[in-house]
C-alpha cells in the first residue's frame, strides 16, 4: 500500500511543479514554452496517476486501460494534425 507520507511528498512535488510551470510561462523561451508547459503537465498527471490513483500497486490491466485511453487520444489528435498541419490554404482574396 502507498503510505500517507508518500502522498504528502507527492502533493508537495505537484505544488512545486505548479510554481515552476507558472514561473516558466512568464519567461520567454520561444517555442520551448509550449513544450515546457506540456512536459510539466504530463509530469503532474503521471504523479497523480501513479501515486494518488495507486497505479503503482494496481495490476498490469489498469496500466493497459489508462495507456489505451491516452494512446487513442493520440490517434485522434495525430490524425487530425496530419490533415490540419499539412494543408495549403488558399484564402479568398
Amino acid at each position, binding site marked *: 500500500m502507498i503510505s500517507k507520507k508518500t502522498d504528502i511528498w507527492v502533493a508537495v512535488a505537484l505544488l512545486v511543479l505548479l510554481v515552476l510551470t507558472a514561473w516558466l510561462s512568464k519567461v520567454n523561451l520561444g517555442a520551448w514554452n509550449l513544450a515546457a508547459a506540456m512536459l510539466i503537465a504530463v509530469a503532474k498527471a503521471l504523479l497523480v496517476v501513479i501515486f494518488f490513483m495507486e497505479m503503482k500497486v494496481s495490476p498490469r490491466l489498469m496500466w493497459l486501460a489508462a495507456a489505451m485511453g491516452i494512446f487513442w487520444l493520440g490517434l485522434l489528435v495525430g490524425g487530425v494534425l496530419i490533415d490540419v498541419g499539412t494543408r495549403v*490554404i*488558399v*484564402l*479568398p482574396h
Partner: protein
Amino acid sequence: MVAVIPMVAAGIPLFPPSASSVSWRVDRLFFGLCAFSVIVVGIVFFGNLYFAIRYRNGSHADRSNQIHDSTPIEWTWTIITAIVFFGYFVWGLQPYFDDFRPPADAMNIYVVGRQWMWKIEHPDGRREINQLHVPVGQSIQLNLISQDVIHSFGVPAFRLKRDVLPGRYETVWFRPTKPGTYHLFCDQYCGAFHSDMAGQIVVMDGARYQQWLSQVRTSTPMAREGSELFRRHGCVECHKPGGRGPELSGLPGRLVHLSDGSVLIADDDYIRESILAPGTKLVAGYPPIMPTFQGQLSEMQISELIAYIKSLGIEEQEVRPQ
C-alpha cells in the same frame, strides 16, 4: 444475365460517358478492381459451394486428418492479400495527383456554390447559372467556393468531384475531350433543394464555342436570375396561363381587384408583400393556397423576382436556360 440485353437496348445506361482527359484512367482502375473482385468472389463462392456440396452432412467424402490450423497457409494468403492491396493503393494514387496539379495554360473559371444554385463566372466576366460552356480540348481550372453550406461540384462524365467549402477556395481542373452536354450535380447534401442544384456542362468544339461567345446577348442579369428563382421555387407551377395563380405578365401598373372588394395598382411593394405574406392582399377569385416565402428568399432574390416579373410583360422571347 440475359435480362441485361433488353435493358441496354431499352436505353438504360450502364456506363457513364467518358469525356475528360482523366476519365479513361479512372475507368481503367475501376475495371482493374472489378477484375480483382470477380476473382476473389469467385474463389470464395466456389470454395464455399464446393465444400458445402462435397462435405455436406451424410456424404461419404473422405474426412480423415482434418486440419484445424496451418500457419503457413494463413501467412501466405495474408501476405498475398497485403501485396495485392498495396498494388491497388499505388495504382489509385495516380489519377488523384493529376487532379491536384492544374496545367499552366488552364482557363480560370470561378464557381460560387450557394444554396441550390451554381453561379459560374468566366474569365471575361460572363456569368452563367447552373450552366458551364467550355471549348473542347481546353484545360479548365475551377476555383470553387461556397457562400453558405458545403456543396460539391460533381461531373460524372469527367470523373470529377470536389467539395465546395465556405470560407476557403478549392481548386480542381479537367480537360474535356468529347463535345456534348453532361450532368453537373451537387454531390454533398446541402438542404431542401439539393437535388435541384443540378446543371449542365456544355462542351462545344472551337467553332460553336466562338459562335456561342458572340451570339449570346447577356440579358439583364437580374431578370435572368429572377427567371431561375421563378422556376426553382415552383412559382411557375401556379402562375402560368391556366394555372391556379393569377397571371403575372404585364402585372406592374395594372389594376388588381382584391378578394375584400378593394382595388389597387400593382407595384413593387405589392409584389414583394404578396411573396412574403400572400394572404394579406389576396386577388379576388383565387384560393389562398400560396405558401409564404418568408425566410427562403433574400432581399436580393426578391428584387430579382420582381425584375423578372417586370421583364415578363415587355419582351416575351427572353433567352431562357433550356
